[in-house]
């Protein structure tokens, strides 16, 4: 069974002549352990898709199902709890709180969920360790590089038992080396069983995904088919073997 499902999800803003259809009849399923990229230009509806998938916004019609729970049948409080415990977000501009250290930022979702400060801190440190940045735990965001800040943001998104990772242009303005590091971290989380969606206009980021879904004007218009073994590419290299 899919961990996250969007069933015929539509989202409109405004009414009458000013009505804008941000999403139209979107179906999307993400399994645990898999990374799906949603690729489209600015204004195509990909960020709306992400906020609805994370139940930060409600669809105008259709259903969002997370881990077998239909969001429409849940109370506001239950939904908020599920969101706090299950969903981690990574934003383009990192969204770290400037007055908190890296460790405090990473452990914040657990503290908000009522877990003791001590236990939350331990989980926060563990998440930073996973991303190779535990040595910066006591630093504040303005003492960290862009790449380090994004690692902290990913640590915050996967801290505790979070099983759904939603990332909006997660490499932000990072250079290609740091962008690749970000995608490797998200992929590593998927290998541990997290279900993840990355929305991006960047084909290089999207190419890390198991499946790439193309969105245009609020509609999913196409998707990649599972690629054959990459070994065929090596055989196709016309140049002498790069390993020589």
């Amino acid at each position, binding site marked *: 069974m899919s961990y996250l499902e969007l069933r015929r999800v539509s989202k409109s803003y405004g009414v009458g002549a000013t009505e804008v259809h941000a999403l139209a009849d979107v179906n999307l399923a993400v399994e645990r352990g898999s990374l799906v990229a949603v690729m489209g230009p600015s204004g195509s509806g990909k960020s709306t898709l992400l906020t609805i998938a994370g139940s930060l916004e409600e669809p105008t019609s259709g259903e969002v199902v997370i881990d077998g729970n239909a969001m429409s049948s849940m109370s506001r409080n239950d939904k908020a709890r599920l969101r706090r415990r299950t969903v981690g977000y990574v934003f383009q501009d990192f969204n770290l709180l400037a007055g908190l250290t890296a460790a405090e930022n990473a452990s914040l979702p657990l503290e908000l969920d009522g877990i003791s400060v001590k236990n939350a801190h331990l989980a926060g440190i563990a998440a930073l360790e996973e991303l190779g940045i535990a040595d910066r735990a006591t630093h504040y965001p303005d003492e960290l590089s862009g790449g380090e800040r994004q690692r902290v943001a990913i640590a915050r998104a996967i801290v505790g038992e979070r099983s759904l990772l939603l990332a909006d242009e997660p490499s932000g303005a990072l250079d290609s080396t740091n962008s690749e590091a970000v995608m490797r971290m998200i992929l590593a989380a998927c290998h541990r069983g997290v279900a993840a969606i990355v929305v991006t206009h960047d084909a290089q980021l999207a*190419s890390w995904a198991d499946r790439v879904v193309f969105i245009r004007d609020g509609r999913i218009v196409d998707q990649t088919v599972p690629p054959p073994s*990459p070994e065929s590419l090596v055989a196709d290299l016309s140049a002498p073997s790069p390993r020589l």
Partner: protein
Amino acid sequence: MSVRHALLAFLSEAPKYGLQLRQEFEESTGQVWPLNVGQVYTTLQRLERDELIESDGRGEETGPQKVFHITEAGRKELDTWLSTPPDTTEPPRDELVIKVLAALRVPGVSVHDVIQVHRRYLVELMQQWTRLKEDEAEFDLTFALVVDAELFRLDSVVRWLDAADGRLKRAALEAPSPKPGPLIRRRLVVRR
């Protein structure tokens, strides 16, 4: 080879004279692709031999005054070519440019659909290269560099498709513009 298919695309609009085809080819490719006069006529001859086009039989044998029509087989050949990925062992951009330009001329073909077919194909190829990088590149610097080069090359083609998609969408929303031929040609000549 794309001279054939460019000519088929022009003929898919309406029957045309040989001379007209030559002029349209030069205008629409904007000198991205210079070709000699004889190449148009020999290509028309081959297309006729392969029954992808027909001529009305009047006028000189392969000359500029003969009227050519596309056949049903020609339309099928054109459709297949438009959505067949180019050989990606060679840089595909120029051929893709020609395909997108040709798709603009073919009645009943959505250029956005043609762009998406190629975009998906390129992203699938990038997924395969990235898998190689994920599994092995960390351990082999030379291989990682080759894979990166290929990924950036493919990425640039996807970016061009995205830009073309956006530009065509904006153009469709705006009032009909004058034929872009002379201006584009001038710019390309300066660049060359």
